[in-house]
């Protein structure tokens, strides 16, 4: 069939109300728009789920943590009863590295996980974001609290999600926010108090952890499989390791970061 004949054929079919092929738009109008598919959340089998745990350590010089100067906001000084030190590199006993964000980077593709129903809270207290590093699932509520006597301002600066900025006065009710896309990490700052920083890792699954002063982490209820486990640190870069988790297995993975 020559091209112009095809066109004629299409027109003819359209006019005669034949819906397939040439007049898809008519077909769409004629039927109800497809409803958003109900989320088909992956169900973890507790009989086979395992866990991965380990420690994050630091080797290298330990620069003295710098005190933070809050003198230009007296209410912030008063709230702290002493010196506050910046927390970009926090090393605990036995070289334990705190504030490392550990997460499954690869291996969960194709699975959709329900967002955790309870919110994750970040508090602005003592003119400091607490915690400094946190994780949240896509769709999970990040609850933002201001416990201080001053106005704060929370300003996440994502690359993938929508950037936003909102002031929160003293005594204002908590704000609630949800991130829609996975993104590791999103820096957060306070436009008013330049020393306030936090980092939030957003993942579309619940398999992440933040190390405390002991440098330890545990990620549990993980289906068996092969994964890339990644670690984000604020100043020491990222590392990855591949792990294979057998049914009901418990993998042990340690990381060491080196300072300059």
């Amino acid at each position, binding site marked *: 069939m020559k091209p112009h004949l095809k066109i004629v054929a299409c027109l003819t079919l359209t006019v005669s109300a034949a819906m397939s092929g040439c007049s898809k738009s008519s077909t769409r109008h004629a039927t109800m728009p497809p409803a958003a598919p109900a989320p088909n959340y992956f169900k973890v089998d507790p009989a086979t789920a395992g866990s991965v745990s380990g420690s994050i350590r630091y080797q290298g010089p330990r620069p003295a943590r710098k005190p933070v100067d809050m003198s230009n906001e007296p209410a912030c000084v008063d709230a702290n009863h002493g010196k506050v030190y910046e927390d970009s590199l926090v090393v605990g006993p036995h070289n334990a590295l705190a504030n490392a964000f550990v997460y499954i980077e690869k291996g969960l593709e194709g699975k959709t996980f329900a967002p955790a129903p309870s919110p994750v809270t970040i508090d602005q207290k003592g003119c400091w974001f607490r915690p400094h590093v946190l994780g949240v699932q896509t769709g999970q509520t990040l609850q933002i609290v201001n416990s201080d006597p*001053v106005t704060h301002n929370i300003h996440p600066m994502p690359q993938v999600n929508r950037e936003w*900025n909102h*002031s929160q006065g003293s005594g204002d009710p908590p704000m609630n926010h949800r991130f829609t896309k996975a993104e590791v990490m999103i820096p957060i700052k306070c436009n008013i108090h330049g020393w306030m920083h936090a980092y939030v890792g957003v993942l579309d699954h619940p398999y992440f952890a933040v190390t405390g002063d002991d440098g330890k982490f545990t990620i549990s209820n993980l289906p068996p499989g092969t994964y890339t486990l990644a670690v984000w640190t604020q100043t020491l870069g990222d590392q990855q390791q591949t792990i294979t988790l057998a049914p009901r297995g418990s993998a042990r993975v340690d990381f060491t970061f080196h300072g300059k």
Partner: protein
Amino acid sequence: MKLRFGQSTCARNRQTRSKSRVLHFAAVVLPALSGIVLPGCERNVSSKPTGTPVTIATPLGLPTVPIPVHNPVTADAIALGRKLFYDRRLSNQSTLSCASCHLPSHDFSDPHRISLGFHGAHGTRHAPTLFNAAYLPSQFWDGRAASLEAQVIGPAFNPVEMDNTAQGVVANLEKDPEYPALFQKVFGTPDITIERVENAIASYERTLLSGNSAFDRYEFGGEKTALTAQQIRGLAIFRDPNRGNCAACHTINAHYALFTDGKFHNIGEGVDDEGKFDDTGRFDRTHLASDTGAFETPTLRDIAETGPYMHDGRLKTLDAVIQYYAGQGNSNPFLDKEIKKIHLSAQDRGDLVAFLKSLTGNTPLDEKPAPERAVHP
């Protein structure tokens, strides 16, 4: 008989009423047209004051007060307007006067976040100061009234404010034996009409001027010691587009300063966590998406005395206001670009607050009238 019930006289100022009020008005008034003569709507009653126009003296730092041709300011009109301003009979059941929410003791604004209206009803916006309202190109936070005259009676008819009606106002005033004589003195005949009430109160409001502040004496009076060193630093920050950027909207001209551009800006105040506005502000009038969440720039005259702040009175102190701006507003799709240019250190913020305290005028005492006379219907 020449009926003037039409766009020009009785229907002109009804824009501010709710639908229910319009229906109520229609139900009550329209049948009445067939038989009963309505006060204010039945005759060609002039609303133009007939006395000798006076010049309103302007304090240092303010320009000449604009006066509309149809409503020249006379001494008698100011006096009548002042009396009406404090008269609770403008409201339903004589509960509230203009001064109930624009308190002279609070520099003609309201210390409440949202004013209490008829029987405790709440509106949604904070009652702003009336100082220097005479210079604004439009009135109300959303600019819905083009003049003081058009603004005056809006609150009287608003169900969540004074909750009255045109005939209610006129009937109340007619009960007072003093008023017909006063109206005669101002307008030449004793008729009491809504338009006359509007004109008289507008004339009074034109006298509510705030100037000759420490800032004015420094800036326009050559008195270099009128401001403290901290206030002078604050003024520099106020003007600096890369720091406070305040003067981008709160304007200071070469020979006077109104501290408002009379325009509408979205500063992010009032937006929720999801980026939406309960009160869409100027958008209500223009239906332009870019006007969403925009409100008319308020003057900063007497700002230290007129808290709480912002269109919804959400911010209690000047410190909170400056901290809010230091945070560069709340993000939303229509945030004014000027907000994003602000960079304030803590010292800048303190200096700005100190400067704002220099904007309190020394309004002559005779412009702050005696306390409201108790009126019992």
